[in-house]
């Protein structure tokens, strides 16, 4: 098979009549790693939902665009079709480990139940111990007898990852998995995800608001703003030589450990999800925008190999 494992193109999603995604394009290769970066309302979580077929539950629907996984079109899948994909082909680690685990059920049973559903041929008990060892939890035989509240935040997050691995997915989507964690714990979780990716030859999509996390853990990166991809390409290139004014401003706004100088802040606030706009959604906050940026349609244009940007003034901006 050639081409990316997950390939989302020009995806538009409406929820309750509001267009929350209007042009999202992301791609991740077999065994690759993609970081999706965005602020509040950028649509990064909605993109995950779309890739997992979970839009129906919130009354959302894909209104335009395509999403293919290993060559199969996802947007037209039936419920049964999704059942074969979700968990078995695409695993998902949600942000909130505490509310995603059943507080009154022991960890072992929760994992065994998932294994029985996603991997019926396996010995549920042995497989759940194997999964806990895979996420580098020491003394798995003791962990299985614990309840979620008896574990630390980092340990719970590892359990969530173990659950996502139960169906032996080829792609793991992790939504802000380290946001609530301390920096020392964050590091170990990111290392774990990197190790798992290599060992299991599994692709990884890491959704986060933290550019530094993406730069250190992902090969490619997509920047979302107000429901659209504004820039995508190799993570190193985007972090060192960003082209879109929003990516540039975001990087300049990040305080650094090595430099205490004034920060170049972006005026205003990101628009609420689903706010309609013409032309470029970032134009009202952009220092490079002119009158023409507020109208017309935008498309992702290549600026170099594998690096695309949605900005009509990108030549002037980069120079």
């Amino acid at each position, binding site marked *: 098979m050639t081409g990316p494992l997950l390939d989302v193109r020009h995806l538009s999603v409406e929820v309750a009549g509001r267009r929350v995604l209007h042009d999202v394009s992301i791609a991740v290769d077999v065994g690759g790693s993609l970081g999706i970066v965005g*602020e*509040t309302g950028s649509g990064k979580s909605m993109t995950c939902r779309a890739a997992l077929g979970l839009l129906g539950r919130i009354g959302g629907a894909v209104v335009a665009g395509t999403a293919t996984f290993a060559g199969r079109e996802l947007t037209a899948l039936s419920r049964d079709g999704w059942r074969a994909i979700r968990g078995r082909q695409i695993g998902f680690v949600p942000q909130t480990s505490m509310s995603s685990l059943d507080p009154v059920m022991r960890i072992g049973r929760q994992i065994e139940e998932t294994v029985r559903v996603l991997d019926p041929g396996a010995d549920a008990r042995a497989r759940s111990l194997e999964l806990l060892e895979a996420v580098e939890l*020491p003394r798995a035989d003791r962990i299985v007898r614990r309840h979620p509240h008896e574990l630390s*935040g980092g340990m719970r997050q590892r359990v969530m990852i173990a659950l996502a691995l139960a169906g032996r997915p080829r792609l793991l989507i992790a939504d802000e998995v380290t946001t609530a964690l*301390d*920096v*020392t714990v*964050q*590091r170990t979780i*990111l290392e774990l995800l990197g190790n798992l990716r290599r060992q299991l030859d599994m692709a990884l999509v890491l959704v986060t*608001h*933290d*550019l*530094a*996390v993406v*730069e*250190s*853990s992902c090969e490619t990166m997509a920047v979302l703003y107000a429901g659209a991809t504004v820039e995508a390409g190799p993570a*190193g290139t985007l*972090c*060192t*030589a*960003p082209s879109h004014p929003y990516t*540039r*401003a*975001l*990087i*300049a*706004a*990040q*305080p*650094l*450990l*090595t*430099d*205490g100088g*004034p*920060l*170049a*802040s*972006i*005026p205003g*606030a*990101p628009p609420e999800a689903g706010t309609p706009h013409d032309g470029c959604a970032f134009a009202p*906050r952009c220092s490079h925008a002119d009158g023409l940026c507020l109208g017309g349609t935008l498309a992702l244009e290549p600026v170099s190999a594998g690096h695309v940007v949605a900005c009509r003034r990108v030549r002037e901006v980069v120079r």
Partner: protein
Amino acid sequence: MTAILEARAVTKRFGVDGPPAVDGLDLAVAPGAGVGIVGESGSGKSTLARMLAGVLPPTSGEIAVGGRPWTAVDRRDQLRRRVQMIFQDPYGALNPWLSARDAVAEVIRFWDRPTRAEARERASQLLADMGLTADAMGRRPRGLSGGQCQRVGIARALACAPDVLIADEPTSALDVSVQAQILNLLVALREERGLAIVLISHDLAVVRHLTEDAAVMYAGRIVERAPTHEMFRSPAHPYTRLLVGSIPGMSGGEARTAHDPGVADHPCRFAPRCPRRADDCIAVRSHDPHLPGGRWAECVHPHLPAAAPVQRTQTQHGGRT
């Protein structure tokens, strides 16, 4: 210079057993100083913040404002105004039933007793200085963005004309682009008003940006103190080193992964995770924490300032020029 806010051997216990949240801590804030307190969840830094602000009494020890302990400061005492606080949750910090302007005007009327119209006028001015539009001033917190709420919270604190602002994770609930606005605002306030700031944060880069001096807290104790930029360039305490090295894009610093139950009640609370732990670490509390070069770390085997600095493995956003 005498300290405007000072904690002396402050301990706070919640409940009868278990380790104290804050354990015999000393801290002094000079007028106009910028002090960063870094720590992870459970380090006791938020408990310390509330004690410094005078709303949580310590179990033992004393916190003094302008030389007088909080316990001797009456509610209406002008000293009460001198320490104010801004909060992590910008929405929760505001009374949901008051508009932005009313929340600030309430403070002005309470302290300075001007006419209602004058209080509103001053509140509007202060909110405008904080970058709030006239339209937003009439709205209640629910109608404001997180960044706008944080500006209202800052304006409300400044309405008291404080000398010290305690900021408990002031930007961790905000988007990066909005965080920069608030950080720049706080930097400007320090310069314009000579405000001292005690910044409590888990984000080292934010502390680096806003303060000159930093203290690292671990399990209720300060384990290292140093000028901010030096601390993050060459951390002396193994924990600080771990903290700095854990930032994405940085390397250096390590921790033991296997917990050793034998050192559970070690006087050094970091001992179970410490890669440099040795038998003589047991004497950590009596060991002289002063290091060459004016550095300070509560550690028997610190990394000396001359040791190799932590490495940047990546460009750390070299796009910024």
